[in-house]
Protein backbone atom coordinates (compact mmCIF):
# COMPACT_ATOMS: atom_id res chain seq x y z
CA UNK A 1 0.00 0.00 0.00
CA UNK A 2 1.30 3.42 -0.91
CA UNK A 3 0.78 6.03 1.77
CA UNK A 4 3.22 8.58 0.41
CA UNK A 5 0.44 11.23 0.12
CA UNK A 6 -0.24 10.99 3.84
CA UNK A 7 1.86 13.58 5.60
CA UNK A 8 1.94 15.41 8.89
CA UNK A 9 1.47 14.55 12.53
CA UNK A 10 -1.74 16.31 13.52
CA UNK A 11 -2.94 17.39 16.93
CA UNK A 12 -6.58 18.26 17.49
CA UNK A 13 -6.65 21.01 20.12
CA UNK A 14 -8.74 20.47 23.24
CA UNK A 15 -10.83 23.60 23.78
CA UNK A 16 -12.97 24.09 26.85
CA UNK A 17 -14.84 27.26 27.69
CA UNK A 18 -13.05 29.10 24.89
CA UNK A 19 -9.59 28.20 26.17
CA UNK A 20 -7.02 25.78 24.86
CA UNK A 21 -6.35 23.12 27.49
CA UNK A 22 -2.83 22.26 28.63
CA UNK A 23 -3.12 18.73 27.26
CA UNK A 24 -2.92 20.24 23.78
CA UNK A 25 0.61 21.41 24.59
CA UNK A 26 1.48 17.95 25.89
CA UNK A 27 0.28 16.44 22.62
CA UNK A 28 2.16 18.97 20.51
CA UNK A 29 5.36 18.27 22.47
CA UNK A 30 4.94 14.56 21.84
CA UNK A 31 4.04 15.15 18.18
CA UNK A 32 7.33 17.03 17.76
CA UNK A 33 9.22 14.04 19.14
CA UNK A 34 7.46 11.68 16.71
CA UNK A 35 8.05 14.13 13.88
CA UNK A 36 11.75 14.18 14.68
CA UNK A 37 11.87 10.46 13.73
CA UNK A 38 9.41 10.49 10.85
CA UNK A 39 10.38 13.82 9.27
CA UNK A 40 6.76 15.00 9.17
CA UNK A 41 5.59 18.53 9.89
CA UNK A 42 3.48 19.05 13.03
CA UNK A 43 0.07 20.50 12.30
CA UNK A 44 -2.77 21.43 14.63
CA UNK A 45 -6.50 21.89 14.24
CA UNK A 46 -8.26 24.45 16.40
CA UNK A 47 -12.05 24.29 16.47
CA UNK A 48 -14.35 26.70 18.30
CA UNK A 49 -16.01 30.08 18.26
CA UNK A 50 -13.92 33.26 18.44
CA UNK A 51 -10.90 31.02 18.85
CA UNK A 52 -8.53 32.27 16.16
CA UNK A 53 -6.35 34.34 18.49
CA UNK A 54 -5.40 31.17 20.39
CA UNK A 55 -3.64 29.73 17.36
CA UNK A 56 -0.37 31.38 18.39
CA UNK A 57 -0.34 29.29 21.59
CA UNK A 58 -0.29 26.16 19.48
CA UNK A 59 2.59 27.48 17.39
CA UNK A 60 4.53 28.32 20.55
CA UNK A 61 4.06 24.71 21.71
CA UNK A 62 5.36 23.28 18.45
CA UNK A 63 2.81 23.46 15.62
CA UNK A 64 4.13 24.41 12.16
CA UNK A 65 0.65 25.01 10.75
CA UNK A 66 -2.60 25.67 12.62
CA UNK A 67 -5.91 25.16 10.81
CA UNK A 68 -8.59 27.26 12.46
CA UNK A 69 -12.23 26.29 12.08
CA UNK A 70 -14.17 29.09 13.68
CA UNK A 71 -17.94 29.40 13.76
CA UNK A 72 -20.57 30.43 16.32
CA UNK A 73 -22.11 27.00 15.75
CA UNK A 74 -18.92 25.44 17.12
CA UNK A 75 -19.01 27.32 20.44
CA UNK A 76 -19.70 24.08 22.33
CA UNK A 77 -18.58 20.59 21.59
CA UNK A 78 -21.11 18.74 19.47
CA UNK A 79 -20.01 15.34 18.16
CA UNK A 80 -21.97 15.50 14.94
CA UNK A 81 -21.00 19.05 13.94
CA UNK A 82 -17.35 18.67 14.96
CA UNK A 83 -17.13 15.42 13.03
CA UNK A 84 -18.49 17.14 9.95
CA UNK A 85 -16.00 20.01 9.89
CA UNK A 86 -12.96 18.09 11.10
CA UNK A 87 -13.70 15.00 9.00
CA UNK A 88 -13.95 17.19 5.91
CA UNK A 89 -10.58 18.81 6.57
CA UNK A 90 -8.83 15.53 7.32
CA UNK A 91 -10.12 13.83 4.19
CA UNK A 92 -8.65 16.65 2.18
CA UNK A 93 -5.34 17.00 4.04
CA UNK A 94 -4.55 13.28 4.53
CA UNK A 95 -2.48 13.33 7.73
CA UNK A 96 -0.14 10.47 8.52
CA UNK A 97 -1.16 10.49 12.18
CA UNK A 98 -3.54 12.33 14.51
CA UNK A 99 -3.42 12.78 18.28
CA UNK A 100 -6.55 13.60 20.26
CA UNK A 101 -6.83 14.27 23.99
CA UNK A 102 -8.55 11.40 25.80
CA UNK A 103 -11.05 13.74 27.44
CA UNK A 104 -14.85 13.55 27.34
CA UNK A 105 -14.72 15.50 24.07
CA UNK A 106 -11.72 13.82 22.45
CA UNK A 107 -12.93 10.34 23.38
CA UNK A 108 -16.15 11.09 21.53
CA UNK A 109 -14.70 12.95 18.56
CA UNK A 110 -11.81 10.59 17.70
CA UNK A 111 -14.06 7.55 17.15
CA UNK A 112 -16.58 9.62 15.20
CA UNK A 113 -13.70 10.70 12.97
CA UNK A 114 -12.58 7.08 12.62
CA UNK A 115 -15.96 6.20 11.17
CA UNK A 116 -16.01 9.22 8.88
CA UNK A 117 -12.47 8.81 7.56
CA UNK A 118 -12.31 4.97 7.92
CA UNK A 119 -9.28 4.49 10.10
CA UNK A 120 -8.38 2.93 13.44
CA UNK A 121 -8.07 4.64 16.80
CA UNK A 122 -6.01 3.43 19.74
CA UNK A 123 -7.66 4.53 22.96
CA UNK A 124 -6.02 6.03 26.05
CA UNK A 125 -2.45 5.69 24.88
CA UNK A 126 0.22 5.99 27.58
CA UNK A 127 3.38 5.40 25.50
CA UNK A 128 4.24 6.39 21.93
CA UNK A 129 7.14 5.46 19.73
CA UNK A 130 8.14 5.06 16.11
CA UNK A 131 9.09 1.63 14.83
CA UNK A 132 12.49 2.13 13.24
CA UNK A 133 12.08 -0.44 10.47
CA UNK A 134 8.62 0.47 9.24
CA UNK A 135 8.27 4.08 10.37
CA UNK A 136 4.91 3.11 11.88
CA UNK A 137 3.75 4.73 15.07
CA UNK A 138 3.45 2.25 17.93
CA UNK A 139 0.61 3.18 20.26
CA UNK A 140 0.78 1.48 23.65
CA UNK A 141 -2.13 1.29 26.04
CA UNK A 142 -3.10 -0.53 29.20
CA UNK A 143 -5.94 -3.06 28.86
CA UNK A 144 -7.63 -5.87 30.77
CA UNK A 145 -8.20 -3.80 33.85
CA UNK A 146 -4.69 -2.38 33.66
CA UNK A 147 -3.12 -5.83 33.89
CA UNK A 148 -1.46 -5.74 30.47
CA UNK A 149 0.02 -3.27 28.01
CA UNK A 150 -0.93 -3.69 24.36
CA UNK A 151 1.27 -2.34 21.56
CA UNK A 152 -0.96 -1.34 18.67
CA UNK A 153 -0.12 -0.44 15.06
CA UNK A 154 -2.13 0.50 12.00
CA UNK A 155 -0.06 -0.72 9.05
CA UNK A 156 -2.78 -0.84 6.39
CA UNK A 157 -4.80 2.29 7.08
CA UNK A 158 -4.10 6.02 7.30
CA UNK A 159 -4.25 8.17 9.27
CA UNK A 160 -2.92 6.42 12.36
CA UNK A 161 -4.90 7.79 15.29
CA UNK A 162 -4.80 7.69 19.07
CA UNK A 163 -6.21 9.41 22.14
CA UNK A 164 -3.92 10.35 25.01
CA UNK A 165 -4.91 11.12 28.60
CA UNK A 166 -4.03 14.52 29.98
CA UNK A 167 -0.88 14.44 32.09
CA UNK A 168 0.66 11.50 30.23
CA UNK A 169 3.36 13.53 28.49
CA UNK A 170 5.42 16.53 29.55
CA UNK A 171 4.27 20.01 28.69
CA UNK A 172 6.96 21.51 26.44
CA UNK A 173 8.38 24.95 27.09
CA UNK A 174 6.25 27.42 25.10
CA UNK A 175 8.40 29.40 22.69
CA UNK A 176 6.66 32.63 21.66
CA UNK A 177 9.29 33.28 19.00
CA UNK A 178 8.49 30.09 17.04
CA UNK A 179 7.13 30.74 13.57
CA UNK A 180 4.17 29.01 12.07
CA UNK A 181 1.35 29.49 9.63
CA UNK A 182 -2.31 30.03 10.52
CA UNK A 183 -4.80 28.80 7.93
CA UNK A 184 -8.49 29.67 8.18
CA UNK A 185 -10.78 26.86 7.14
CA UNK A 186 -14.40 27.80 6.44
CA UNK A 187 -16.94 25.86 8.49
CA UNK A 188 -19.57 24.53 6.15
CA UNK A 189 -22.29 24.24 8.78
CA UNK A 190 -25.89 25.12 9.49
CA UNK A 191 -28.07 24.72 12.57
CA UNK A 192 -29.31 21.40 11.16
CA UNK A 193 -25.84 19.86 11.47
CA UNK A 194 -25.89 20.14 15.26
CA UNK A 195 -26.95 17.02 17.15
CA UNK A 196 -27.38 18.72 20.50
CA UNK A 197 -28.47 22.04 21.95
CA UNK A 198 -26.62 23.11 25.09
CA UNK A 199 -29.12 24.00 27.81
CA UNK A 200 -26.97 24.56 30.84
CA UNK A 201 -23.51 24.14 32.33
CA UNK A 202 -23.54 23.04 35.96
CA UNK A 203 -20.33 23.26 37.99
CA UNK A 204 -20.08 20.01 39.94
CA UNK A 205 -19.62 20.12 43.69
CA UNK A 206 -16.22 18.95 44.83
CA UNK A 207 -17.57 15.96 46.77
CA UNK A 208 -18.39 14.34 43.47
CA UNK A 209 -14.79 13.30 43.26
CA UNK A 210 -15.19 9.76 44.50
CA UNK A 211 -11.94 8.38 45.87
CA UNK A 212 -12.39 5.03 44.16
CA UNK A 213 -11.97 6.78 40.82
CA UNK A 214 -9.16 9.12 41.79
CA UNK A 215 -5.75 8.77 40.21
CA UNK A 216 -4.18 10.55 43.14
CA UNK A 217 -5.33 10.11 46.73
CA UNK A 218 -4.13 12.37 49.49
CA UNK A 219 -4.99 10.44 52.66
CA UNK A 220 -4.54 11.55 56.22
CA UNK A 221 -4.70 9.97 59.66
CA UNK A 222 -4.36 10.73 63.31
CA UNK A 223 -0.97 12.30 62.76
CA UNK A 224 -2.91 15.38 61.70
CA UNK A 225 -3.96 17.09 64.85
CA UNK A 226 -6.29 19.94 63.97
CA UNK A 227 -9.00 20.81 61.49
CA UNK A 228 -6.86 23.68 60.22
CA UNK A 229 -4.14 21.21 59.34
CA UNK A 230 -6.75 18.94 57.78
CA UNK A 231 -7.84 21.76 55.47
CA UNK A 232 -4.28 21.75 54.12
CA UNK A 233 -4.81 18.20 52.86
CA UNK A 234 -7.70 19.48 50.77
CA UNK A 235 -5.56 22.29 49.47
CA UNK A 236 -2.87 19.80 48.46
CA UNK A 237 -5.40 17.46 46.86
CA UNK A 238 -6.80 20.33 44.79
CA UNK A 239 -3.30 21.32 43.71
CA UNK A 240 -2.51 17.79 42.57
CA UNK A 241 -5.93 17.14 41.05
CA UNK A 242 -6.57 14.37 43.54
CA UNK A 243 -9.12 13.38 46.17
CA UNK A 244 -8.87 13.29 49.95
CA UNK A 245 -9.06 9.95 51.75
CA UNK A 246 -8.90 9.19 55.46
CA UNK A 247 -8.26 6.55 58.09
CA UNK A 248 -11.12 5.47 60.30
CA UNK A 249 -10.34 7.62 63.34
CA UNK A 250 -10.54 10.73 61.17
CA UNK A 251 -13.97 9.78 59.90
CA UNK A 252 -15.06 9.05 63.45
CA UNK A 253 -13.96 12.57 64.36
CA UNK A 254 -16.28 13.80 61.62
CA UNK A 255 -13.53 15.60 59.70
CA UNK A 256 -14.30 13.55 56.64
CA UNK A 257 -17.46 11.63 55.61
CA UNK A 258 -17.47 7.86 55.81
CA UNK A 259 -17.41 7.81 52.00
CA UNK A 260 -13.77 8.92 52.23
CA UNK A 261 -12.68 6.13 54.59
CA UNK A 262 -10.19 3.70 53.15
CA UNK A 263 -9.79 0.17 54.46
CA UNK A 264 -11.54 -2.93 55.67
CA UNK A 265 -14.70 -1.14 56.78
CA UNK A 266 -14.33 1.63 54.20
CA UNK A 267 -13.46 1.66 50.53
CA UNK A 268 -10.85 -0.17 48.51
CA UNK A 269 -8.97 2.17 46.25
CA UNK A 270 -6.53 1.66 43.40
CA UNK A 271 -5.08 5.04 42.54
CA UNK A 272 -1.85 5.61 40.70
CA UNK A 273 -0.53 7.50 43.70
CA UNK A 274 -1.41 7.28 47.37
CA UNK A 275 -0.13 9.75 49.92
CA UNK A 276 -0.43 8.69 53.58
CA UNK A 277 0.07 11.63 55.90
CA UNK A 278 0.17 10.70 59.56
CA UNK A 279 -1.21 7.25 58.93
CA UNK A 280 0.45 4.43 60.86
CA UNK A 281 -0.29 1.78 58.24
CA UNK A 282 -2.57 -0.56 60.17
CA UNK A 283 -3.50 -3.66 58.21
CA UNK A 284 -7.19 -2.70 58.38
CA UNK A 285 -6.33 0.48 56.51
CA UNK A 286 -3.68 -0.75 54.10
CA UNK A 287 -5.77 -3.70 52.87
CA UNK A 288 -7.86 -1.09 51.03
CA UNK A 289 -4.88 0.49 49.28
CA UNK A 290 -3.63 -0.90 45.97
CA UNK A 291 -1.57 1.94 44.53
CA UNK A 292 1.28 2.03 42.03
CA UNK A 293 3.21 4.44 44.22
CA UNK A 294 2.85 4.83 47.98
CA UNK A 295 4.23 7.93 49.66
CA UNK A 296 4.27 8.14 53.45
CA UNK A 297 5.06 11.03 55.73
CA UNK A 298 5.21 10.20 59.43
CA UNK A 299 7.24 11.48 62.33
CA UNK A 300 7.93 7.90 63.41
CA UNK A 301 10.39 6.31 60.98
CA UNK A 302 9.47 2.89 62.37
CA UNK A 303 5.74 3.20 61.66
CA UNK A 304 4.56 0.16 59.65
CA UNK A 305 3.57 2.28 56.65
CA UNK A 306 7.19 3.36 56.20
CA UNK A 307 8.12 -0.23 55.28
CA UNK A 308 5.44 -0.40 52.60
CA UNK A 309 6.08 3.01 51.09
CA UNK A 310 8.08 3.78 47.95
CA UNK A 311 8.83 7.21 49.37
CA UNK A 312 9.12 7.32 53.15
CA UNK A 313 9.66 10.69 54.75
CA UNK A 314 10.24 11.03 58.47
CA UNK A 315 9.06 14.49 59.44
CA UNK A 316 6.59 16.35 61.63
CA UNK A 317 3.53 17.19 59.57
CA UNK A 318 2.76 20.42 61.33
CA UNK A 319 5.73 21.98 59.59
CA UNK A 320 6.07 19.57 56.70
CA UNK A 321 2.65 20.15 55.15
CA UNK A 322 2.85 23.94 54.66
CA UNK A 323 6.40 23.62 53.34
CA UNK A 324 5.39 20.85 50.93
CA UNK A 325 2.38 22.77 49.61
CA UNK A 326 4.54 25.83 49.02
CA UNK A 327 7.11 23.75 47.15
CA UNK A 328 4.46 22.08 44.98
CA UNK A 329 3.06 25.50 44.05
CA UNK A 330 6.54 26.69 43.18
CA UNK A 331 7.16 23.70 40.89
CA UNK A 332 3.74 24.16 39.31
CA UNK A 333 4.31 27.80 38.49
CA UNK A 334 7.55 27.15 36.74
Amino acid at each position, binding site marked *: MDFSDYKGIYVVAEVRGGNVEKVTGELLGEARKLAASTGDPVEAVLIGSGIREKASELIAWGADIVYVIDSPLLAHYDGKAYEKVLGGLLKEKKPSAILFAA*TPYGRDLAPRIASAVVCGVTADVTELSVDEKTGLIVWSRPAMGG*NIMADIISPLYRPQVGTVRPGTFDLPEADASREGRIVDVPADLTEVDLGTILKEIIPAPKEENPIEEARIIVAGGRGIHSEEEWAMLHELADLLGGSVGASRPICELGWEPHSSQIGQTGKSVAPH*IYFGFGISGAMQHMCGVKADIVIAVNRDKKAPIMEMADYAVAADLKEFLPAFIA*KVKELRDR
Partner: protein
Amino acid sequence: MKILVCVKQVVDTSKMEVDPNTGRLNRNGANSILNPCDRNALEAALRLKSQTGGTVTVITMGPPQAGAVLLEAVSMGADDVYLITDRAFGGADTLATSYTLAAAVRKLGNDFDLIFCGEESIDSNTAQVGPEVAAMLGIADVSAAVDFQWDGEKAVVTRQVGEGREVLELKLPALVTASPALNTPRYPSVQGILRKYETEIHQLTSADLDVEPDRIGLKGSPTQVRGIRPVVPPKKENLKIEDQSPADAAAQLADALAKVHVI
Protein backbone atom coordinates in the same frame (compact mmCIF):
# COMPACT_ATOMS: atom_id res chain seq x y z
CA MET B 1 -40.54 4.45 20.90
CA LYS B 2 -38.31 1.98 19.21
CA ILE B 3 -35.25 1.56 21.38
CA LEU B 4 -32.09 -0.44 20.75
CA VAL B 5 -29.43 -1.48 23.23
CA CYS B 6 -25.98 -2.81 22.30
CA VAL B 7 -24.41 -5.11 24.87
CA LYS B 8 -21.09 -6.92 25.06
CA GLN B 9 -19.96 -10.05 26.83
CA VAL B 10 -16.70 -9.36 28.64
CA VAL B 11 -14.15 -11.11 30.81
CA ASP B 12 -14.52 -10.18 34.46
CA THR B 13 -11.18 -8.41 34.72
CA SER B 14 -11.59 -7.72 38.44
CA LYS B 15 -10.68 -11.37 39.01
CA MET B 16 -7.49 -11.25 36.97
CA GLU B 17 -4.00 -10.48 38.14
CA VAL B 18 -0.52 -10.45 36.70
CA ASP B 19 1.64 -13.09 38.35
CA PRO B 20 4.53 -11.04 39.75
CA ASN B 21 6.98 -13.91 39.25
CA THR B 22 6.16 -15.13 35.75
CA GLY B 23 4.60 -11.95 34.36
CA ARG B 24 1.73 -14.08 33.06
CA LEU B 25 -1.87 -13.00 33.10
CA ASN B 26 -3.69 -15.13 35.62
CA ARG B 27 -7.40 -15.37 34.83
CA ASN B 28 -8.16 -16.94 38.23
CA GLY B 29 -11.10 -18.63 36.54
CA ALA B 30 -12.56 -15.23 35.61
CA ASN B 31 -16.04 -15.61 34.18
CA SER B 32 -17.60 -14.06 31.14
CA ILE B 33 -20.19 -11.51 32.22
CA LEU B 34 -22.47 -8.84 30.81
CA ASN B 35 -20.41 -5.65 30.61
CA PRO B 36 -21.40 -3.74 33.78
CA CYS B 37 -22.38 -0.39 32.27
CA ASP B 38 -24.44 -2.14 29.60
CA ARG B 39 -26.84 -2.76 32.50
CA ASN B 40 -27.10 0.99 32.89
CA ALA B 41 -27.80 1.25 29.16
CA LEU B 42 -30.53 -1.39 29.47
CA GLU B 43 -32.01 0.31 32.51
CA ALA B 44 -32.22 3.64 30.67
CA ALA B 45 -33.91 1.92 27.73
CA LEU B 46 -36.41 0.08 29.92
CA ARG B 47 -37.32 3.26 31.83
CA LEU B 48 -37.84 5.11 28.57
CA LYS B 49 -40.05 2.32 27.29
CA SER B 50 -42.17 2.43 30.45
CA GLN B 51 -42.70 6.16 29.79
CA THR B 52 -43.37 6.07 26.07
CA GLY B 53 -44.38 2.51 25.28
CA GLY B 54 -42.69 0.72 22.40
CA THR B 55 -40.03 -1.94 22.32
CA VAL B 56 -36.54 -2.59 23.59
CA THR B 57 -34.41 -4.64 21.19
CA VAL B 58 -30.98 -5.85 22.29
CA ILE B 59 -28.09 -6.89 20.06
CA THR B 60 -24.64 -8.26 20.64
CA MET B 61 -21.89 -9.30 18.29
CA GLY B 62 -19.88 -12.26 19.47
CA PRO B 63 -19.41 -16.01 19.47
CA PRO B 64 -22.47 -18.23 20.12
CA GLN B 65 -21.86 -18.28 23.88
CA ALA B 66 -22.36 -14.51 23.93
CA GLY B 67 -26.07 -15.34 23.69
CA ALA B 68 -25.92 -15.65 27.48
CA VAL B 69 -25.79 -11.86 27.90
CA LEU B 70 -28.82 -11.49 25.64
CA LEU B 71 -30.80 -13.80 27.89
CA GLU B 72 -29.72 -11.71 30.84
CA ALA B 73 -31.11 -8.68 29.04
CA VAL B 74 -34.38 -10.58 28.54
CA SER B 75 -34.55 -11.34 32.26
CA MET B 76 -34.28 -7.60 32.92
CA GLY B 77 -37.12 -6.88 30.49
CA ALA B 78 -35.85 -6.70 26.90
CA ASP B 79 -38.45 -7.58 24.26
CA ASP B 80 -36.35 -9.20 21.57
CA VAL B 81 -32.73 -10.09 21.13
CA TYR B 82 -30.32 -10.65 18.23
CA LEU B 83 -26.98 -12.40 18.22
CA ILE B 84 -24.72 -11.20 15.43
CA THR B 85 -22.41 -14.10 14.94
CA ASP B 86 -20.17 -15.39 12.21
CA ARG B 87 -16.57 -16.54 12.05
CA ALA B 88 -16.04 -13.74 9.54
CA PHE B 89 -16.72 -11.19 12.30
CA GLY B 90 -13.92 -12.56 14.48
CA GLY B 91 -10.93 -10.43 15.43
CA ALA B 92 -12.79 -7.15 14.94
CA ASP B 93 -11.42 -3.94 16.39
CA THR B 94 -13.81 -1.17 17.32
CA LEU B 95 -14.17 0.10 13.74
CA ALA B 96 -15.09 -3.32 12.34
CA THR B 97 -17.33 -3.98 15.36
CA SER B 98 -19.14 -0.68 14.83
CA TYR B 99 -19.43 -1.24 11.10
CA THR B 100 -21.08 -4.61 11.74
CA LEU B 101 -23.37 -3.25 14.47
CA ALA B 102 -24.41 -0.37 12.19
CA ALA B 103 -25.19 -2.89 9.44
CA ALA B 104 -27.34 -4.81 11.91
CA VAL B 105 -29.19 -1.62 12.85
CA ARG B 106 -29.98 -1.10 9.16
CA LYS B 107 -31.08 -4.71 8.82
CA LEU B 108 -33.48 -4.24 11.74
CA GLY B 109 -35.13 -1.34 9.93
CA ASN B 110 -32.86 1.58 10.89
CA ASP B 111 -35.86 3.22 12.55
CA PHE B 112 -34.76 3.31 16.19
CA ASP B 113 -35.48 6.56 17.98
CA LEU B 114 -32.76 5.93 20.51
CA ILE B 115 -29.80 3.60 20.74
CA PHE B 116 -28.09 2.99 24.06
CA CYS B 117 -24.61 1.55 24.52
CA GLY B 118 -22.44 1.18 27.58
CA GLU B 119 -19.81 3.88 27.93
CA GLU B 120 -16.96 1.40 27.79
CA SER B 121 -16.23 -2.28 28.24
CA ILE B 122 -14.24 -3.44 31.26
CA ASP B 123 -11.94 -5.68 29.23
CA SER B 124 -10.64 -3.34 26.55
CA ASN B 125 -12.28 -0.06 27.63
CA THR B 126 -11.89 1.95 24.46
CA ALA B 127 -15.30 3.68 24.78
CA GLN B 128 -15.22 3.98 21.00
CA VAL B 129 -17.96 1.68 19.77
CA GLY B 130 -20.87 4.00 20.69
CA PRO B 131 -19.63 7.15 18.94
CA GLU B 132 -18.41 5.09 15.97
CA VAL B 133 -21.83 3.49 15.49
CA ALA B 134 -23.51 6.90 15.75
CA ALA B 135 -21.20 8.39 13.13
CA MET B 136 -21.75 5.44 10.78
CA LEU B 137 -25.49 5.93 11.05
CA GLY B 138 -25.07 9.70 10.65
CA ILE B 139 -26.84 10.46 13.92
CA ALA B 140 -26.05 12.52 17.02
CA ASP B 141 -24.56 11.00 20.14
CA VAL B 142 -23.64 11.90 23.68
CA SER B 143 -20.89 9.87 25.35
CA ALA B 144 -20.76 8.88 29.01
CA ALA B 145 -24.17 10.22 30.01
CA VAL B 146 -24.65 10.70 33.75
CA ASP B 147 -28.33 11.59 33.40
CA PHE B 148 -31.06 10.96 30.83
CA GLN B 149 -34.59 12.34 30.96
CA TRP B 150 -37.52 12.15 28.61
CA ASP B 151 -39.91 15.01 29.26
CA GLY B 152 -42.62 13.82 26.93
CA GLU B 153 -41.24 15.67 23.93
CA LYS B 154 -37.51 15.95 24.24
CA ALA B 155 -34.58 13.87 25.38
CA VAL B 156 -32.32 15.77 27.78
CA VAL B 157 -28.92 14.26 28.49
CA THR B 158 -26.20 15.30 30.92
CA ARG B 159 -22.52 14.61 30.52
CA GLN B 160 -19.68 15.22 32.94
CA VAL B 161 -16.87 17.39 31.58
CA GLY B 162 -14.04 17.92 34.00
CA GLU B 163 -15.47 19.61 37.06
CA GLY B 164 -18.71 20.55 35.43
CA ARG B 165 -21.73 19.02 33.77
CA GLU B 166 -23.33 19.92 30.48
CA VAL B 167 -27.07 19.53 30.06
CA LEU B 168 -27.92 18.94 26.42
CA GLU B 169 -31.11 18.59 24.46
CA LEU B 170 -30.57 15.75 22.06
CA LYS B 171 -32.07 15.65 18.58
CA LEU B 172 -33.49 12.23 17.77
CA PRO B 173 -32.68 9.76 16.43
CA ALA B 174 -29.55 9.60 18.54
CA LEU B 175 -27.20 7.34 20.44
CA VAL B 176 -26.31 7.66 24.12
CA THR B 177 -23.57 5.81 25.95
CA ALA B 178 -24.30 5.06 29.59
CA SER B 179 -21.82 5.75 32.36
CA PRO B 180 -22.14 3.77 35.59
CA ALA B 181 -23.51 6.95 37.21
CA LEU B 182 -26.52 7.08 34.87
CA ASN B 183 -28.89 5.04 37.03
CA THR B 184 -29.16 1.98 39.26
CA PRO B 185 -29.88 -1.03 37.08
CA ARG B 186 -32.77 -3.23 38.12
CA TYR B 187 -32.47 -6.88 39.09
CA PRO B 188 -33.99 -9.48 36.82
CA SER B 189 -37.65 -10.06 37.62
CA VAL B 190 -39.07 -13.54 38.25
CA GLN B 191 -41.21 -13.04 35.17
CA GLY B 192 -38.16 -12.07 33.19
CA ILE B 193 -36.22 -15.09 34.35
CA LEU B 194 -39.10 -17.32 33.26
CA ARG B 195 -39.33 -15.54 29.92
CA LYS B 196 -35.68 -16.33 29.34
CA TYR B 197 -36.60 -19.94 28.74
CA GLU B 198 -39.12 -19.11 26.02
CA THR B 199 -37.17 -16.45 24.25
CA GLU B 200 -35.69 -17.18 20.90
CA ILE B 201 -32.32 -15.62 20.19
CA HIS B 202 -32.48 -14.45 16.59
CA GLN B 203 -29.22 -14.89 14.75
CA LEU B 204 -27.72 -12.65 12.12
CA THR B 205 -24.73 -13.79 10.09
CA SER B 206 -22.67 -11.95 7.51
CA ALA B 207 -24.99 -13.31 4.82
CA ASP B 208 -27.93 -11.54 6.51
CA LEU B 209 -26.22 -8.17 6.64
CA ASP B 210 -25.29 -5.77 3.89
CA VAL B 211 -21.57 -5.74 4.64
CA GLU B 212 -18.48 -5.51 2.49
CA PRO B 213 -16.18 -8.46 3.24
CA ASP B 214 -13.12 -6.26 3.66
CA ARG B 215 -14.81 -4.08 6.30
CA ILE B 216 -15.61 -6.84 8.81
CA GLY B 217 -13.60 -8.99 11.21
CA LEU B 218 -9.83 -8.95 11.29
CA LYS B 219 -9.63 -7.72 7.70
CA GLY B 220 -11.75 -4.68 8.38
CA SER B 221 -9.78 -3.76 11.49
CA PRO B 222 -7.25 -0.95 11.05
CA THR B 223 -5.74 -1.44 14.51
CA GLN B 224 -3.60 -4.49 15.04
CA VAL B 225 -2.43 -5.60 18.45
CA ARG B 226 1.22 -6.24 17.64
CA GLY B 227 2.07 -7.50 21.08
CA ILE B 228 0.93 -7.74 24.64
CA ARG B 229 3.17 -7.46 27.67
CA PRO B 230 2.39 -7.62 31.35
CA VAL B 231 2.39 -4.36 33.22
CA VAL B 232 5.27 -4.66 35.58
CA PRO B 233 4.28 -2.79 38.71
CA PRO B 234 6.64 0.14 39.02
CA LYS B 235 9.61 -0.82 41.17
CA LYS B 236 9.59 0.38 44.72
CA GLU B 237 11.59 3.56 44.65
CA ASN B 238 12.84 3.03 48.18
CA LEU B 239 13.57 6.64 48.75
CA LYS B 240 13.94 7.37 52.44
CA ILE B 241 14.17 10.91 53.73
CA GLU B 242 15.18 11.00 57.37
CA ASP B 243 16.81 13.35 59.86
CA GLN B 244 16.10 16.49 57.85
CA SER B 245 14.34 19.69 58.74
CA PRO B 246 10.68 19.54 57.67
CA ALA B 247 11.32 22.21 55.02
CA ASP B 248 14.26 20.30 53.52
CA ALA B 249 12.32 17.06 53.65
CA ALA B 250 9.40 18.73 51.85
CA ALA B 251 11.67 20.13 49.14
CA GLN B 252 13.40 16.79 48.60
CA LEU B 253 10.13 14.89 48.32
CA ALA B 254 8.65 17.44 45.92
CA ASP B 255 11.72 17.29 43.68
CA ALA B 256 11.72 13.49 43.68
CA LEU B 257 8.03 13.40 42.76
CA ALA B 258 8.48 15.99 40.04
CA LYS B 259 11.04 13.65 38.49
CA VAL B 260 8.43 10.91 38.13
CA HIS B 261 5.77 13.43 36.97
CA VAL B 262 3.58 13.17 40.04
CA ILE B 263 3.86 16.93 40.39
